[in-house]
């Protein structure tokens, strides 16, 4: 049994427990043992957190670890390294691997790779439909029993309304959230970026916001009709924000996440960053960015999730319309979130909540808070540290980010998972 860990003298921000005060945090046997002033513990290892924030470990509901199948882009190990470097103690791994995580064999493979990596917690997401084809449901109960925490065909929509309705019904038996990538393919077909003046100038054919909004509307209708739990992935535009806000007001079991790129960048980024600003959903208009920011603040959005999507040069150093969608996000999520704090759009505690308790609640995951008995997953942040994002130093195997070279403030200094330091000031390891 390893010695207790005493994190001393930091500002403990634990929104789930209404705490924001200078305190010590004692971790013992993989749990939070005590939080309070002037804690003592014989034989404890001490981390001096003076001047730092001590917050629950971040939880990312939406990452692509690419294993099995595309290990050249990322593996469970390299993704977990990127995660702890970004302050994440838990990530949810999307099922669009090769093969797809639509059977327990793949679920078990991801879990065994995660155990071997021994860095952060990795929760697999199972597919809603076999092969992500949108035709036949997977065995949701089997996938849940094997360790999946949600089901999703992420990257693809469920185009059949009837199949989506059945998925919401079937999944209810296991109280599993159905996470959806909202995109009406008949509306987005042929498009490469958001409809607007930038796309018009660059000659990239338009994706209208209705491609997302119409599907959110459909699924809210289905949810209301048949019940279940609906989680909207990467909410990106004003119309969707309105629908989710309204559905929540009516008490439907709907949650939503937003990605840092959708609240920090608008379509103008395509001009500067080219394919590194090509996403699905696409970067939207400034009015959409403001709407997502407001949704983060007012609770319409429950969680910040990165949609960490590693791609190599073969997928990005190509014509815009042929490039793959997405960027990596694990190692830049914190400073990008803090930009909203610095701009006065989010309180510190709300920002922390969106990275911790918020996502934990969405999928019912352990952690996300520092109450006694909670998992000993803790992140330390130096809120004053100013640094420049350098993608060449990322722990992720991929480099696809439009944020390379950006000057930011706020940096993860330590990431503690289960009471063990997995990341410390630029170093990742099993026993730091």
């Amino acid at each position, binding site marked *: 049994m390893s010695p207790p860990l005493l994190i001393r003298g930091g500002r403990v921000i634990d929104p789930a427990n209404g705490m924001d005060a200078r305190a010590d945090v004692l971790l013992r046997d993989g749990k939070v043992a005590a939080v309070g002033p002037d804690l003592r513990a014989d034989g404890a290892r001490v981390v001096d957190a003076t001047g730092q924030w001590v917050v629950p470990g971040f939880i990312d509901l939406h990452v692509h670890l690419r294993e099995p199948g595309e290990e050249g882009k990322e593996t469970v190990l390299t993704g977990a390294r990127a995660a702890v470097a970004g302050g994440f103690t838990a990530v949810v791994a999307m099922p669009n691997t090769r093969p797809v995580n639509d059977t327990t064999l793949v679920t078990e493979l991801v879990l065994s790779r995660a155990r071997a990596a021994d860095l952060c917690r990795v929760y697999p997401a199972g597919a809603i439909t076999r092969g992500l084809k949108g035709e036949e449901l997977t065995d949701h109960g089997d996938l849940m029993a094997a360790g999946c925490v949600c089901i999703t065909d992420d990257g693809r929509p469920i185009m059949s309304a009837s199949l989506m309705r059945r998925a919401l019904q079937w999944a209810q038996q296991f109280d599993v959230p159905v996470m959806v990538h909202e995109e009406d393919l008949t509306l987005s*077909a*042929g498009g*490469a970026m958001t*409809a*607007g*003046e*930038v*796309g*018009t*100038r*660059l*000659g*990239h*054919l*338009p994706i209208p916001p209705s491609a997302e909004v119409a599907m959110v509307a459909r699924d809210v209708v289905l949810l209301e009709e048949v019940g279940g739990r609906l989680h909207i992935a990467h909410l990106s535009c004003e119309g969707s924000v309105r629908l989710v806000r309204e559905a929540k007001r009516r008490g439907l079991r709907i949650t939503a996440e937003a990605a840092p790129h959708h609240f920090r960048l608008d379509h103008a980024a395509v001009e500067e960053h*080219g394919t590194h600003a090509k996403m699905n959903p696409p970067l939207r208009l400034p009015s959409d960015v403001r709407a997502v920011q407001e949704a983060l603040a007012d609770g319409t959005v429950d969680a910040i999730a990165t949609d960490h999507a590693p791609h190599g040069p*073969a997928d990005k*150093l*190509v*014509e*815009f*319309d*042929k490039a793959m969608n997405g960027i990596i996000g694990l190692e830049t999520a914190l400073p990008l979130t803090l930009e909203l704090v610095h701009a006065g759009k989010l309180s510190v505690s709300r920002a922390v909540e969106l990275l911790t308790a918020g996502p934990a609640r969405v999928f019912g995951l352990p952690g996300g808070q520092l109450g006694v008995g909670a998992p000993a997953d803790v992140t330390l942040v130096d809120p004053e540290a100013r640094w420049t994002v350098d993608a060449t130093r990322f722990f992720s195997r991929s480099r696809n980010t439009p944020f390379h070279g950006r000057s930011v403030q706020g940096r993860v200094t330590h990431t503690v998972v289960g009471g063990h330091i997995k990341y410390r000031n630029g170093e990742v390891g099993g026993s730091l």
Partner: protein
Amino acid sequence: MGNLLSIAGWDRAALEAFFPRADAHLALLGNPSRPTPLAGRWVASLFFEDSTRTRVSFEAAATSLGLHVMNWSAKGSSVSKGETLLDTARNVDAMGPAAIIMRHPSSGAADLVARHVRCAVLNAGDGTHEHPSQALLDCFTLWKRWGGFAGRRVAIVGDVLHSRVARSNTLALRALGAEVVLVAPPTMMPAGVEALGASATHDLDAVLPTVDAVMTLRVQLERQQHAFFPSPREFSRRFCLTEARAARLKAEAVVLHPGPMNRGVEIASAVADGPRSVVMEQVTHGVAVRRALLEMLL
């Protein structure tokens, strides 16, 4: 050595300085003893998409300047073996051309290549983005007529959404001080064209008496499958520049078309071949404009 990727980098002064140079080249076209200042060098003509006018025009311009032209087309090349655009372009670049003249179906393709090769890159049309040499020859044609652009108003009519010609011409005409009105059915009008400095309408008949020139755009008939328009017939009812419509133009107004034409769809034969048409002038001017460009950039 410079690139020609977009009209966006051309301001009014650059355009106004360019037209007399193109005019000087126009005067040399029929002269068999014209100088060949670029002799001994060569350019690669990389067409990933079909073309008649632009390709032949660039080649005629290049050879008349003494350049050798190496022809390449996607059909029968390693593109069919899955070679990427950048690999193709870098390999050609490594053979040492003075320039790559390229047409490609993806918007931004010329810009991508230009950032990864040493030679000059001339964009001969990239997707639905730009076709800068076309805009230069169109504006040169109008400059020859008008001498200047102040107070002039130009309508660009048809499938603006998918038209690189419309984008490049809007930028060039606005830079020159002309007014631009884009006329398209709502399904073929891109968002936010006001940001380009153009106004937008779908009422061609209201626009015609107000303009000094009409540029008709080619309708890509395959777009009908995607319901951008119900039928060529319905499209032409509303947007074809017919004789009756042309009669409502100002007396001196001219009609342009970048080709290839769908006669009877966006332009009636009687107009295309009629007294207002400057289509053949455009084609001739194309060679002069491309000579001027090659001499300037290489």
